[in-house]
């Protein structure tokens, strides 16, 4: 591990906390500029239709309406897509989900914009709705995906595999076998702040955009593409973001492009923000998955082979599912050794809204399946679930089923032992088993889940980031990164890293939010890559600046730079008085040194073969284990999570308070995923639009969590750091469900494990509604032709 640090890993506070507690932080909805217009979008009220006609002429005449736009106001009809070009800024010819934008209006007031929407005449001709992902690849399935010329079914988004040996043959020979189907639901990000964007036009034809986007540089490049403007004309600035968890990509980019086009048309600033209902119906979700697991082990508890087939519902557009599928594929084996393993995942188009990135990015889904299967196998063998995992889990020197030999930084065994000790597993598990044999209807359970999670992008894309740093006139330091802080704390992490390298107080550093004019493109802020990739870039820039400053210090102190010592912020040489930071900076300026630096950090190349399903998918992995304690009331079906213990190998922890917060927050989302959260589509119509119908955990649903970090050294991360944001939630749902199985003796293969599933071990039938709930935001002025 890196030598001793003074600031990194030590207690510190968030750089943006003060404005947030005072209520002065400005989010997109808090921006108001003179002459600002309000925008609103007409959204499809049908999940799959041809747009027969779209007439905006009446809307344009509504008093107060300043402009109306459709797909025709964009280059190439506004076609865009981050991984597949299958999406439009506003619908072109077809709508593929209920909630898809068709036209947008800008007006003097929100009311006038609403009247404008009502005056748009749109006629839809319904097409057959594809709502069952299992049917998507049938030869006669309604076509939702774009036309293809390569003979592949148009409803296939992507197909990924991991392949090692022939598992099916091996499983047949195994004395202990298990075959199961699992289902995970669509989950809503449910960030407290909904999406929005503000575009401000200037007389030279340029635009400044403020948007709730996860990656301002991606937003900028999409805007350039759909508006046909050069980079110099579009500046994207990040306001404070009220949570993202993977969710503020595509919809935020569409919204940005809509307000941008309206601003160009009217010459006035235009803002659009969403109601909760509109955010839910227009935005994207975590994909739903069906998974078919076959697994075999020897009588002595050695895992032998795994077959993991899965289908992933991407909904109307590919969005992040294109890569979620791959990440899910890589992680579907769990953190175990197998003699043979075959993972085969397909993501498909349907008319169920659409799905994209969400914390865990596919691993959250597959971990639920594999960790329940492993647990059930341990039960069958009569081996303690923790012993079984310890025996089979990945250790230093092991080769993963992908063919990756792990040469460093594998803290999994330590994590498992930690949660075992912290939770008092051995004694408690026994006591609960005994208790559950009594007649009490209050059952108790203890469950465990372990996992691994690839750090940063891996084979998902080019992986680099840049940072700029400079010393200002008042001796403060400005630092920028192209990666975004949407609440997870990366601005604090970069500040601490730069302070460490420069030997200054963190207060001296002003860390900017990304602005495409002043920071440098660093790819997407996804995959929990902010700490490793962005952190390395910030560290490199700070180190390079420190070298320049040390030259000046050495000059004043008449010594070599390597003889310099630091006391507080001051510099001392071998035998002279200390000189202050300010004096050194002044001296550097007199010497004519330029006190700024810009550095880029590039992740090592990884090597994955998509054809053979073998290779090195990621350069490092986060490992972890969680134990959940539950109480299940058999009379009411209520599941109470009483306690969670979590041990994570996140490499070196840079900002402990922030890492703990990520851990708690991720676990809370995992509890929601396990027990209450499910976006329900009824024949393509989303049913739960607001927090009264889509419930997320409150302070009473989450217990006090006992977390700890097992610090191994990731040689690639800054100071040995890995990641934490996503991994935190990955094992929570299976740990809870394994605890429920321990408590009740029954397994639930579908989440959320709702009341009826626990009581009846089956889902209650939902009455078919085939209707969009009548919410005020949704304007159903579109005429829908009768379905034949």
């Amino acid at each position, binding site marked *: 591990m890196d030598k001793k640090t003074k600031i990194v890993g030590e207690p510190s506070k968030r750089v943006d906390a003060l404005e947030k507690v005072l209520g002065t932080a400005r989010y997109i909805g808090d921006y108001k500029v003179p002459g600002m217009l309000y925008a609103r979008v007409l959204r499809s009220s049908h999940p799959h239709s041809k747009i027969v006609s779209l007439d905006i002429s009446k809307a344009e005449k509504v008093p107060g309406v300043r402009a109306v736009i459709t797909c025709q106001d964009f280059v190439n009809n506004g076609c865009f897509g981050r991984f597949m070009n299958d999406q439009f800024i506003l619908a072109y010819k077809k709508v593929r989900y209920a909630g898809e934008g068709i036209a947008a209006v800008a007006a003097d007031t929100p009311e006038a914009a609403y009247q404008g929407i009502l005056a748009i005449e749109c006629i839809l001709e319904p097409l057959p709705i594809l709502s069952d992902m299992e049917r998507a690849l049938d030869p006669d399935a309604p076509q939702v995906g774009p036309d293809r010329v390569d003979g592949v079914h148009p409803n296939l988004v992507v197909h990924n595999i991991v392949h090692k040996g022939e598992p099916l043959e091996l499983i047949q020979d195994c004395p202990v076998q298990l075959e199961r189907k699992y289902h995970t639901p669509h989950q809503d990000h449910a960030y407290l702040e909904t999406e929005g964007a503000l575009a401000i036009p200037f007389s030279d034809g340029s635009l400044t955009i403020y948007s709730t986007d996860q990656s301002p540089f991606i937003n900028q490049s999409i805007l350039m593409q759909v508006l046909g403007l050069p980079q110099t004309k579009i500046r994207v600035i990040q306001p404070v973001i009220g949570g993202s968890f993977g969710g503020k990509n595509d919809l935020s980019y569409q919204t940005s492009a809509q307000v941008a086009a309206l601003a160009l048309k009217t010459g006035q600033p235009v803002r659009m923000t969403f109601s909760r209902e509109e955010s839910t119906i227009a935005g994207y979700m975590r994909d739903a998955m069906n998974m078919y697991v076959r697994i075999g082990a020897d009588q002595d508890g050695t895992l032998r082979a795994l077959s993991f087939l899965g289908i992933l519902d991407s909904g109307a557009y590919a969005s992040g599912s294109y890569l979620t599928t791959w990440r899910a594929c890589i992680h579907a084996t769990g953190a175990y050794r197998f003699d043979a393993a075959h993972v085969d995942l397909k993501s498909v188009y349907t008319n169920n809204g659409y799905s994209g990135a969400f914390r865990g990015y596919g691993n959250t889904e597959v971990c639920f399946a594999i960790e329940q299967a492993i647990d059930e196998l341990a039960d069958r063998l009569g081996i303690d679930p923790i012993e079984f995992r310890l025996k089979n889990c990945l250790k230093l020197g092991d080769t993963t089923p992908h063919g990756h030999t792990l040469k460093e930084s594998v803290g999994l065994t330590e994590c498992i032992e930690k949660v075992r000790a912290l939770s008092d597993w051995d004694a408690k598990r026994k006591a609960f088993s005994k208790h559950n044999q009594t007649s009490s209807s209050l059952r108790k359970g203890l469950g465990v889940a372990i996992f691994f999670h690839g750090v940063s992008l891996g084979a998902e894309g080019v992986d680099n980031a840049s940072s700029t740093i400079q010393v200002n006139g008042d001796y403060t330091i400005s630092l920028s990164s192209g990666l975004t802080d949407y609440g997870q704390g990366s601005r604090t992490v970069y500040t601490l890293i730069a302070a460490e390298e420069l030997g200054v107080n963190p207060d001296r550093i002003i860390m900017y939010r990304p602005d495409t004019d002043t920071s440098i493109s660093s790819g997407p802020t996804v995959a929990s890559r902010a700490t490793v990739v962005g952190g390395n870039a910030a560290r490199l820039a700070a180190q390079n600046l420190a070298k320049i400053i040390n030259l000046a210090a050495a000059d004043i102190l008449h010594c070599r730079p390597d003889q310099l010592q630091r006391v507080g912020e001051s510099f001392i040489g071998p035998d002279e008085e200390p000189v202050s930071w300010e004096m050194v900076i002044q001296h550097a300026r007199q010497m004519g040194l330029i006190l700024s630096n810009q550095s880029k950090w590039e992740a090592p190349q990884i090597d994955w073969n998509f054809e053979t399903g073998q290779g090195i998918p990621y350069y490092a992995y986060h490992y972890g284990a969680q134990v959940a304690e539950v109480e299940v009331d058999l009379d009411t079906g209520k599941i109470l999570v009483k306690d969670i213990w979590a041990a994570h190998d996140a490499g070196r922890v840079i900002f402990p308070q922030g890492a703990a*917060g990520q851990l708690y927050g991720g676990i809370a989302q995992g509890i929601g995923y396990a027990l209450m959260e499910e976006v329900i589509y009824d024949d393509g119509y989303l049913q739960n639009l607001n927090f009264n119908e889509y419930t997320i955990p409150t302070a009473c649903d989450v217990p006090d969590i006992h977390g700890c970090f097992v610090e191994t050294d990731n040689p690639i991360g800054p100071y040995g750091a890995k990641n934490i944001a996503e991994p935190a939630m990955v094992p929570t749902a299976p740990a809870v469900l394994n605890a429920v199985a321990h408590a009740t003796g029954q397994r639930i293969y579908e989440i959320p494990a709702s009341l009826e599933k626990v009581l009846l071990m089956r889902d209650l039938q939902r009455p078919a509604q085939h209707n969009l709930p009548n919410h005020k935001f949704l304007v159903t002025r579109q005429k829908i032709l009768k379905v034949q």
Partner: protein
Amino acid sequence: MNIAFKLNGKKTSVTIPEDITLLTMLREHLNLTGTKQGCEIGECGACSVLLDGKLVNSCLVLAPQVEGREVVTIEGIRGLDGGPNDLQQNFIDHGAIQCGYCTPGMILASEALLSAHLKPSRSEIREALSGNLCRCTGYQQIVDAVEATAKSRNLQSEGQKNNG
């Protein structure tokens, strides 16, 4: 219509359409944007304010209902020096903030609890905050911050009693 009320300790009068909510009046007519909008149906607590000292969801209160009454928003929660008060400082110190969108509502809900209850247990704190959703923090550090504030306010008030 015109309504007059006390806002963050100051007499205020404002002319508004009569069918708007307190939340809209605060954000759009008085430019107090610290009060957030998360759901508009009374489920998330992002819009929490104190009305005559009681916690309410301002999205469920019609603006004219506050006539003659007293409203406290996040902008009215300050220490003596105009900076953060002890509770806000504890939110900072305990890492009770991530994206910060729920924070103003959480602070007001916590103030409402602490004004009514001097020694809340952790589960009472959780209960009191259960009308305020936070998607980022998992609540733990928020509970820590409120617990720490309760302790220090108790010490202070006991100290005052002893001195008196």
